[in-house]
């Protein structure tokens, strides 16, 4: 099943979809930023079994 690109729902829900998309992109950015900070600034230890490998 495929959606017609011209279906009015695409225009009707454009604002809502744009908002959700922007929120999800921001979330990706925040989680990425947090990961970088946790790995580089917080005391981070590689598990010992990983080191032995």
């Amino acid at each position, binding site marked *: 099943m495929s959606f017609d690109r011209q279906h*009015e729902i695409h225009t*009707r*829900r454009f*604002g*809502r979809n*744009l*908002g*959700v998309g922007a929120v999800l992109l921001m979330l990706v950015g*925040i*989680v990425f*930023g*947090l990961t*970088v*900070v*946790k790995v580089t*600034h*917080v005391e981070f230890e590689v598990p010992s079994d990983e080191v032995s490998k």
Partner: protein
Amino acid sequence: MSMSDASMITRAPSQEAGFGDYFALLKPRVMSLVVFTAMVGLFAAPISVHPIVAFASILFIAIGGGASGALNMWWDADIDAIMRRTRSRPIPSGKVMPDEAKAIGIALSGFSVVLLALASNFVAAGLLAFTIFFYVVIYTMWLKRWTPQNIVIGGAAGAFPPMIGWAVATGGISLESVLMFALIFVWTPPHFWALALFMRNDYDDAKIPMLTVTHGRRSTRNHILGYTLALAAVAIGTGFTSLGGPAYIVVAVVLNIAFIKGAVDIWRRDEADSEGDDFKIERGFFKLSLAYLFLHFCAILIDPLLAHIAGGML
């Protein structure tokens, strides 16, 4: 369900909610207070936090606060439709369906607590989870429609954010964070009772047992004065702990003199006086209460900031 049944519960395109309507479910004005007080709690703590961790933590606290707002709107949609103040909210205005608000509230609650745990620590996440539970279950579902003490006990939900901010930095609870909690907790009743005095028919119509309805307006005026005096003791007393300092004490004394004067003015008036000037004093006291809380939390940051600047100059 037949097609005709389905069409009956489908909104007309003109009624369809936009992104802003879903955002309004999160009560942005309440969220701004949550963000501000949580930030003060975090920055007042003696342990510094990386800016990205601080930003993400405050954001997740705000989302948790917003989630509880959405669940509150889902549960209270019937009374929101009656009260003038809340009639235009997304659910009573027909833009968002109650089940959508419930789903968004539950999803964002889980999301915010888990991500706060990952970003900071389990104490902060546990406090956020408890705050959401307290606001939605204890206040919204239980106390609000049952007891005139709804605002007094329910006020605890709004008082937790600075404790969560403090816990993000320190990983625990201490006297300082409990004092910030106490400041908002004791501030909440006079703030809402002043609102109940001049939004007089709203709570009556919605059959919410506000103090004005159950114990009368004279009793509400007495209670406002009593809680304002208790608040002054907490606010000024805080100045003599490690949370305060000379600048905080000056701000607290000035604000509490003004707030007590407002409460005494409300206490001395009767209904005829208030009707005569359309609740001018009560409205003024309500506005002052907003500035009161904002300035107290700003003042908590003044002394550490001055010490930091002085330290930098040496």
